[in-house]
């Protein structure tokens, strides 16, 4: 076979491997309306299921009468907890070691909780049936405040209290109160308290990171199809972790795992919403088993916002100490974590507060202590990581606010305070006071680049002038300069630390090279818009020397893909990306032997060069990967099995630690509370860059979600536990009109332990963006005495800050 491309540079370009902005292969179908999302699935005889939901946040259920609903033409069944109990499916395990009602078992604990599941021939009959299920409720006192919950005599979870009133341990140890879930600690309590007690300067602050929701544009849903003839269950759904879902379904249903096929089709955004297992999945499976027909369940938007997967809801109190010169000496943090009615947080088993212990941030803090108390309230369960690794957004928000507060205490510039406390390049790998080993970083370089690019000194001068003008009555707009420097911790994770329901958090890739030199690779992850089919092919192209355009990437079908823990927490590139590279290297190792045989030299006398193996010192003698692939299938090579396939299960030795430096310039109308984003600069260091176009797209998207959370997006409850933000009228998703243009930039500090040095990027802009937007608002008011004000910074809350500072007088 003659290779048409000979020039080395052309050969590299032809691969479309790592580092190039390859156009996405997914886009042809999406731009033509040919995506295949779960609600696009239509099967013969398919039924629709939907829930009767509780209007009350806390109530006892006296009775459920389904008779009238069953009279509706087209309604086939109405499932209640009583129907599920004989199967042992009225409760299900959560990812956090708790259990959750699938259908209300005697009481409800949050508004919107699933009470009964109506199964009908179409969605119209199901909707009509729901209206006719009669549920008699007896209202109970509602607790929406976790501090009140810890004082209250009202027992939210009677199932977790012994008959004698004793409190058995929870999944994470002893419980202090009947509404308490766990206490989780990291670091050294006494030494930290001692340093703080004797410090020259101490700043303390309390902050609330409000409850919000990932709200992907596609809601959660599934289609369950039980084939009774063959005993096989197929479950399509919006699953960010399809393999884990298969295992969970098997464990709770008793169906053997080989008889379950879970398929994640195209997913319309996840952002953490689609990690967990929801009652809708269980009920659909049961309904399909009961009826023998496929059953579809799709959330509507209100269901989605009210019942599946909230994020945040952390009440954080901190103390940070420093020398007079600003060198930080210790950090202390306490969190009261509102987990809602069931603890369904999606965290690795040993980390009930996720990786909140990354809260020392990017700074060299010698001593630290973190304590988190999880609490039950009458709110929806969830606690997912909304576009961040486990609780990292909370951690980074906490430290980036504490830094600002300390700067105020020290009367110091917040950029300079960061600079003098950054972990230095030569300190990596750096072991933080709360236990993590940061792999690599060059924070000073990134910070200097960011501040120089935005002309930080100039901005501060302009801001000072603005303050003068404001005081002189020449303007009613203040200017805020938001800074943030974040370190993420992603790529969960080493199996020795990280598992979910006992499943180690490795990931996988299996490659088959076809005889003509194209390939298919399957992974244990699942894209929800990240462009895996594009980027993983690029990794492979560089590793195995076949063009990315000749490599199909497939994910999400548990019958064909190797086992993996899925896509969330920016883990796909750090873990599955590494598995891909390692599997590619196995292919290459075999290819080297084949090449040596074909070239009639010793294995050690050939070397890999872009898309071929060449004889060392004789580059005119070579075999291309395409030729080698063909040979693998058509020649009997002594000592080598036919075929060219490989699989790798990658257990990362450590997490990766992407970082970045963000600056936001904001103008704030003091009289109306309306903020205007004038400029946003984002420098990201995600290690080796696989596809700059996709990285930039991820940064734009993550920043926009950060903007939303910082400036208005919340799941708000009233005192009765009613959700006040159940539609997109009130739940803030910005449109193109509210979003600025972003400037993106980068440095490259590869991860030393990752096969290709990549760290992951999808969540960084959200993690770094939220404190940056918030700091911009807060900074605008700093000259007038503002220290801290809670998010979301919507118009009225910004106005309130101005009002409290006397700026309307």
């Amino acid at each position, binding site marked *: 076979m003659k290779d048409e491309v000979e020039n080395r540079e052309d050969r590299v370009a032809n691969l479309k491997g790592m580092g190039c902005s390859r156009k996405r292969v997914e886009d042809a179908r999406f731009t033509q309306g040919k995506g295949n999302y779960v609600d696009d699935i239509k099967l013969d005889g398919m039924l629709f299921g939907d829930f009767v939901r509780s209007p009350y946040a806390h109530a006892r259920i006296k009775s459920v009468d389904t008779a009238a609903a069953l009279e509706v033409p087209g309604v086939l069944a109405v499932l209640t907890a009583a129907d599920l109990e004989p199967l042992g499916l009225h409760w299900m395990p959560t990812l956090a070691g708790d259990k959750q009602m699938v259908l209300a078992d005697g009481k409800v604990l949050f508004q919107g909780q699933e009470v009964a599941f109506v199964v009908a021939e179409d*969605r*119209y009959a*199901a*909707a*009509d049936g729901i*209206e006719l299920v009669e549920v008699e409720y007896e209202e109970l006192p509602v607790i929406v405040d976790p501090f009140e919950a810890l004082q209250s005599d009202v027992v939210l979870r009677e199932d977790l209290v012994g008959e004698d009133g004793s409190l058995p341990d929870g999944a994470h140890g002893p419980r202090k109160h009947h509404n308490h879930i766990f206490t989780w600690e990291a670091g050294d309590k006494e030494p930290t308290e001692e340093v703080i007690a004797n410090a020259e300067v101490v700043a303390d602050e309390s902050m609330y990171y409000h409850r919000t929701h990932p709200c992907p544009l596609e809601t959660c849903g599934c289609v369950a199809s039980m084939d009774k003839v063959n005993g096989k269950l197929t479950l399509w759904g919006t699953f960010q972790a399809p393999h884990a879902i298969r295992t969970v379904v098997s464990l709770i249903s008793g169906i053997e795992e080989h008889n379950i096929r879970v398929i994640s089709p195209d997913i319309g955004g996840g952002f953490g919403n689609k990690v967990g297992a929801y009652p809708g999945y269980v009920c659909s499976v049961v309904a399909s088993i009961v009826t023998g027909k496929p059953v579809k369940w799709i959330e*509507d*938007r*209100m269901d989605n916002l009210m019942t599946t997967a909230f994020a945040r809801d952390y009440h954080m109190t901190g103390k940070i100490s420093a020398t007079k010169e600003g060198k930080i000496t210790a950090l202390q943090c306490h969190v009261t974590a509102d987990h809602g009615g069931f603890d369904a947080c999606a965290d690795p088993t040993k980390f009930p507060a996720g990786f909140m212990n990354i809260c020392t941030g990017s700074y060299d803090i010698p001593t630290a202590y973190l304590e988190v108390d999880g609490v039950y309230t009458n709110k929806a369960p969830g606690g997912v990581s909304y576009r961040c690794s486990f609780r990292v957004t909370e951690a980074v928000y906490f430290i980036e606010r504490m830094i600002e507060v300390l700067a105020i205490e020290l009367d110091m510039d917040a950029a300079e305070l960061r600079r003098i406390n950054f972990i230095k390049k030569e300190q990596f790998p750096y072991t933080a006071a709360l236990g993590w080993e940061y792999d690599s970083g060059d924070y000073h370089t990134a910070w200097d680049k960011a501040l120089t690019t935005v002309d930080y000194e100039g901005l501060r001068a302009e801001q000072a002038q603005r303050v003068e003008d404001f005081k002189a009555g020449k303007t009613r707009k203040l200017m805020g300069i938001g800074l943030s420097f974040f370190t993420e911790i992603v790529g969960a994770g080493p199996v020795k630390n990280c598992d979910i329901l006992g499943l180690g958090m490795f990931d996988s890739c299996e490659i088959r090279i076809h005889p003509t030199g194209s390939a298919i690779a399957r992974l244990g992850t699942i894209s929800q818009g990240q462009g895996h089919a594009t980027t993983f092919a690029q990794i492979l192209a560089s590793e195995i020397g076949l063009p990315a355009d000749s490599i199909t990437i497939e994910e999400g079908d548990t019958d064909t893909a190797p086992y993996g823990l899925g896509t969330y927490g920016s883990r796909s590139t750090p873990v599955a990306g590494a598995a891909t590279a390692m599997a590619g290297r196995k292919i290459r190792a075999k290819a080297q032997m084949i090449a040596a045989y074909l070239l009639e030299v010793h294995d050690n006398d050939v070397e890999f060069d872009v898309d071929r193996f060449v004889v060392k010192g004789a580059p005119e003698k070579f075999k291309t990967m395409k030729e080698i692939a063909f040979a693998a299938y058509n020649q009997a090579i002594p000592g080598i099995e036919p075929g060219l396939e490989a699989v790798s299960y990658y257990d990362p030795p450590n997490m990766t630690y992407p970082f970045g430096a963000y600056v936001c310039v904001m103008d704030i109308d003091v*009289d*109306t*509370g*309306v903020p205007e984003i004038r400029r946003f600069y984002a420098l990201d260091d995600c290690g080796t860059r696989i596809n700059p176009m996709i990285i930039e797209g991820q940064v734009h998207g993550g920043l926009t979600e950060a903007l939303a959370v910082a400036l*208005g997006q919340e799941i*708000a409850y009233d005192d009765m536990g009613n959700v*006040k*933000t159940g*539609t*997109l*009228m*009130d739940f*803030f998703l*910005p*449109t193109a*009109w*509210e979003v600025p243009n972003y400037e993106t930039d980068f440095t490259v500090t590869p991860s030393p332990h990752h096969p290709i040095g990549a760290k992951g990027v999808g969540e960084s802009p959200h993690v770094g963006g939220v404190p940056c937007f918030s700091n911009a608002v807060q900074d605008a008011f700093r000259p007038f005495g503002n220290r801290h004000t809670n998010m979301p910074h*919507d*118009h*009225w809350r910004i*106005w*309130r800050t101005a*009002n409290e500072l006397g700026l*309307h007088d």
Partner: protein
Amino acid sequence: MIPAAFEYYRPQDMAGVLAILEEHGDDARVMAGGHSLIPMMKLRMAEVPHLIDLQDVGGMSGIEVGTDSIRIGAMVTQSDIIDDASLAAAAPILREAALQIADPQVRYMGTVGGNVANGDPGNDMPGLMQCLDARFTLVGADGERDVPARDFYEAAYMTAREDEEVLTAVTIPLPKGGYAYEKQKRKIGDYATAAAAVQITKEGDVCASAAIAMTNLSDTPVYSEAAGAALVGTALDDAALTAAAAAMLNDIDPTEDNRGPIAFKKHVAGVILRRAILRAWSRA
């Protein structure tokens, strides 16, 4: 979200509409663009056993700019208003306001009639029509009658329109002088936190007339005669603006919602009103 079942009618003329209304009383509702009603039906917050689609009833889609007045048919959409050059010349405040309603898709469907007739205190057109001293034409079994916009709104979703009547047109005296429609909202697609419609005329350096109404600050739109009167005869100095704002604040009665508490809304109402007045004045 699936609405409850209903009967759908698409009569070809007003007589047909009235006959159905006569037969079903408040079990029947007329629908123009449906962008307020259909979401309410989907959320099952509105029950409409008999839905009358007005799209085939002729004679309600015209915009006529006369020498003294403008007549806008009830089925004229927000996007029709934005695109009509003669209307933009004669009453530019309508275009300025329409552009601040909802989003492009909704403006294609949302009608003037629907916006003024359903009595939602969040809608923009009612306050605007009060500012412009519009009259609404209502047709019923007993014939036609006109109701001034300033007398039309009684409470949230309660208006002077009887269940068996249809609002067919809005007639506006040709506006004079400077105008402004100022609206603060949280995002595209939101109702106003506060919005003000102002129309001002000027003689020399002095305000000759001023009409002012505000939106979403009470359970009805608020036309404040006192606020307008506070400006007349002044050169719109700070004292006059303060007096106008004070008069308006006296007339509004906002409630707390996700947009903010009452104190905030009152403050913003004053700010938005001042800005609207000054912008209108600069154009007078």
